[in-house]
């Protein structure tokens, strides 16, 4: 099974742990990740100021995958949403589709809109399969109590046919339980991480992230698990800034990508999963797994 691997700008320029762990686990699960020459930004960051620029950039990447006859596996919630939404938007706006096609012709690319983009959770459920994941577990993560964080763009807007129910998703809980860990639902689990505000009002973004981390910590979870590099940036990398901004000095919680967690359960060494790149206190998870 071959898929066009699209880590996205944030992953391939700074959130390396996601890319390293994905490259480690997927081949072991029978998935070949193809690096596509010429992939660029998905355009989503420009959607606010220029819908046409966003449409062009997303369609451009989809056209590159289409040329190879491959479906796309992005790692980022935002990139996946962008690809899906652009396919939908251009389908509904044939005039715009023609205009975008004429821009793609500058590079000799063609776009039909038939290239599917997979959300990683949907991919793990429908392409890899939960049974296969369960049977790949060599070291069940027994005793770990994990909080899920989907990220808004994994589940909304449901008009695009997202991975699970937008108000009551269970897929990430199921994927975590398949590894032997517990993933109890909690009231704040669908709350936003605040990252969307980081560009304009940084302190508010940190406050929103802090509230979520504090709630998770107070409910006694061992760690948070996510699949979005932007949420990871807020929840994992910004804990120090959050402590300063919110004056809540006790916020101190491990955060992991699901790909890292899956790798640990498969028995892969922590270093190969780049757990030493997470900035939150991830050593706690390893200690707990080793029974210390």
């Amino acid at each position, binding site marked *: 099974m071959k898929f066009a691997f699209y880590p996205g*700008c*944030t992953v*391939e*320029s*700074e959130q*390396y742990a996601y*890319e*390293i762990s994905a*490259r480690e686990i997927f081949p072991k699960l029978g998935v070949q990740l193809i*690096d596509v*020459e*010429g*992939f*660029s*930004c998905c355009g989503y*960051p*420009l*959607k*606010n*100021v*220029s*819908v*046409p*620029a966003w*449409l*062009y*950039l997303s369609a*451009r990447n989809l056209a590159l995958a289409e040329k190879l006859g491959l479906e796309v596996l992005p790692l980022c919630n935002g990139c996946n949403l962008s690809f899906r939404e652009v396919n939908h938007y251009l389908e*509904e*706006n044939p005039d715009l589709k023609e*205009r*975008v096609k004429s*821009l793609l012709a500058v*590079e000799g690319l063609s776009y039909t809109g038939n290239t599917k983009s997979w959300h990683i959770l949907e991919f793990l459920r429908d392409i890899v399969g939960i049974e296969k994941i369960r049977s790949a577990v060599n070291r069940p993560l027994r005793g770990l109590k994990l909080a899920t964080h989907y990220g*808004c763009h994994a589940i*909304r*807007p449901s008009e695009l046919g997202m991975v699970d129910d*937008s108000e009551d998703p269970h897929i990430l809980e199921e994927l975590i339980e398949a590894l032997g860990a517990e993933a109890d639902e909690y009231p704040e689990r669908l709350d*936003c991480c*605040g*990252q*969307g*505000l980081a*560009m*304009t*009002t940084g302190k*508010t*973004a940190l*406050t*929103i992230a802090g509230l979520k981390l504090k709630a998770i910590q107070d409910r006694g979870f061992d760690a948070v698990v996510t699949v979005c590099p932007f949420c990871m940036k807020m929840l994992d990398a910004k804990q120090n800034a959050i402590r300063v901004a919110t004056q809540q000095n006790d916020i101190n919680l491990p955060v992991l990508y699901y790909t890292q967690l899956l790798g640990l359960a498969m028995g892969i060494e922590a270093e190969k999963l780049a*757990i*030493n*790149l997470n*900035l*939150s*206190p*991830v*050593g706690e998870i*390893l*200690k707990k797994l080793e029974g210390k």
Partner: protein
Amino acid sequence: MNKLDTHLRHVLGHQRHEYCHQCGKCSSGCPAASFLDFRPRRILAMVQLGMIEELVKSEVIWSCAQCLACKERCPRDAAPYDVIQALQNLTFNLNLPVPEAYPALINSILKTGVVQTPTKVRVWRQLPTKDTVKGDFEFRDRLSLGLPQLKKPAEMQKLALALQEALKWKEE
């Protein structure tokens, strides 16, 4: 400002801001509304009253966290998120000030095809725990972490040309 209203309608497609009946579901579920003077319901009301010029000249439209909860939950398909984004697009098209991060993002994509080129990141020599006060780390890049070199667009000038063309599209 009739032209602006036409533009908004074009960007919004099937979604209709005039369907909003001010139920307030958007503002009540909005993560930004709890901390900022930002209320999606108020923005929809202002659009309905034709106060578009006030909105595109105001910083308030840039306080959206883009979580999409309002779009998801709107019982009238008025999609506040889409209305706000259309106002942001309109601001850009009118050459009015937008947050400085956007011109920087555009320049980066025009130059490199991506929003950020690879950086060096912190790598722990020993995994941090809750008691770690100051961990021991080093900075490493993609290659030293065993990641492949990125195969970015070979013909950047063509990408930049097409992107500049797209950025110039305005709704006539």
